[in-house]
């Protein structure tokens, strides 16, 4: 087990292992997402209160879940890097940030679009929307810090540290925002309160959540693979790979 983990930690073997895993993850993501979308759009019943707007849920809820758990995964990579100094963890962290930020953005905008027919306004300072907004700021902090630091090695350490500091603070922020929201309760309807969702809605939602997870892992792997190549570009195995890729491209043109 440890041996296997150790192997995964080296950039070269990660590249080899992910080569085999990536098609599986990609196919599963595509499968779950397309079945989930068709089911959610065509076959799931409309909500008895919200009507067809409830179909927004099949995008909004998975995006929100992924927004949070991608921050968790990113920050865990930061912990791994700070404790064990595994280079791959730091690469993984930096590659997760833009994906996480884009999913958080998706969660925010879809929440806002959902709010329009539900509440009559585009934005309500609802507890979950507000903490998603804060999460978005945390992601932007990581991205901004990374782009401001020129040295790759210290950028990795700095973003790891910042992600871990954010991880420690996140529960406190979430708690305080929830508490603040109960003080200033303005809307009686909340996105989180779903009185006994029928199984016909629950199942496609589950598919979408699983699909989003597979999607996240797929694109995360793709980004890490590229970053590994860029960092290891002086290594022999990368050189050989580049040359074989060139040959493949030439063959394609010849045919």
């Amino acid at each position, binding site marked *: 087990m440890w041996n296997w983990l150790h192997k995964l930690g080296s950039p070269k073997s990660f590249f080899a292992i992910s080569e085999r895993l990536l098609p599986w993850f990609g196919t599963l993501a595509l499968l779950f997402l397309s079945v989930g979308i068709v089911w959610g759009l065509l076959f799931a019943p409309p909500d008895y209160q919200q009507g067809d707007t409830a179909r927004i849920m099949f995008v909004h809820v998975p995006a929100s879940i992924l927004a949070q758990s991608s921050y968790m995964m990113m920050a865990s990579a930061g912990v791994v890097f700070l404790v064990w100094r595994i280079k791959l963890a730091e690469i993984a962290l930096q590659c997760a940030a833009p994906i996480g930020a884009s999913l958080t953005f998706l969660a925010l905008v879809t929440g806002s679009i959902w709010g329009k027919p539900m509440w009559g306004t585009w934005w309500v300072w609802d507890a979950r929307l507000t903490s998603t907004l804060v999460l978005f700021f945390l992601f932007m902090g990581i991205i901004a*810090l990374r782009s401001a630091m020129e040295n790759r090695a210290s950028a990795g350490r*700095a973003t790891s540290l910042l992600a871990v500091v*954010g991880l420690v603070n996140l529960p406190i922020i979430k708690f305080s925002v929830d508490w603040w929201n109960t003080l200033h309760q303005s809307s009686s309807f909340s996105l989180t309160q779903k009185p006994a969702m029928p199984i016909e809605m629950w199942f496609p939602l589950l598919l979408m959540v699983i699909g989003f997870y597979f999607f996240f892992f797929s694109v995360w792997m793709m980004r890490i693979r590229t970053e590994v190549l860029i960092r290891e570009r002086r290594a022999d195995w990368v050189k050989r790979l580049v040359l074989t890729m060139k040959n493949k491209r030439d063959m394609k043109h010849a045919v």
Partner: protein
Amino acid sequence: MLIKSIQRELLLSMRRPADLLNPLVFFVLVVSLFPLGISPSDEVLKEIAPGVIWVAALLSTLLSMEVMFRNDFEDGSLEQMSISPQPFLVLVGGKIVGQWLVSGLPLVLMSPVLAVMLALSEEGIKAMFISLLLGTPILSLLGSIGAGLTIGLKKGGALIAILILPLYIPVLILGTHMIIAAEQGVSYSGDVLWLAAILALSISLAPFATTESVRIALSDG
């Protein structure tokens, strides 16, 4: 050792009164913009006062954070400290305490005057004073992490705001709620305990993160 390093910090800032005064002037200025921008009537001011004072405190802390390590970094003494036989953690801790003494504390002491100008009641002023007294050290501690990370960077100013402001949210919520509760005559001892708990947590964790962040910034150079 810690006291020595705090003393050094105080002495250095005495020699540079502008760094000491600017955040304070900024604080007063920002607060006084709101009556001009919104309305000078007592009811409106009472309503917005807690938020205005706290947001201004957040921003002016951020302003003083920016210069926290800069001078020591530029003349190389920060690098010296990091390799000196004294534990770096204590030196950094001294810098944080010193930073709060010259920027946080004056702000706390100044705030009752502003609170009177914003038509807060006596109870409200008391709560505000306590909330700032407990809250500004948290701001200094958390801010020092961001200050460390952005030491040698050119666009440090805006960057430190993006890094640190999200972390300030719980303090802002608790601090303003304390003042609002006091204005309404409700007990706010729960908020005091929460702020104290966050302060304790920050004291025990933030100096380590700051030390690490300064180390990273030094190795970046």
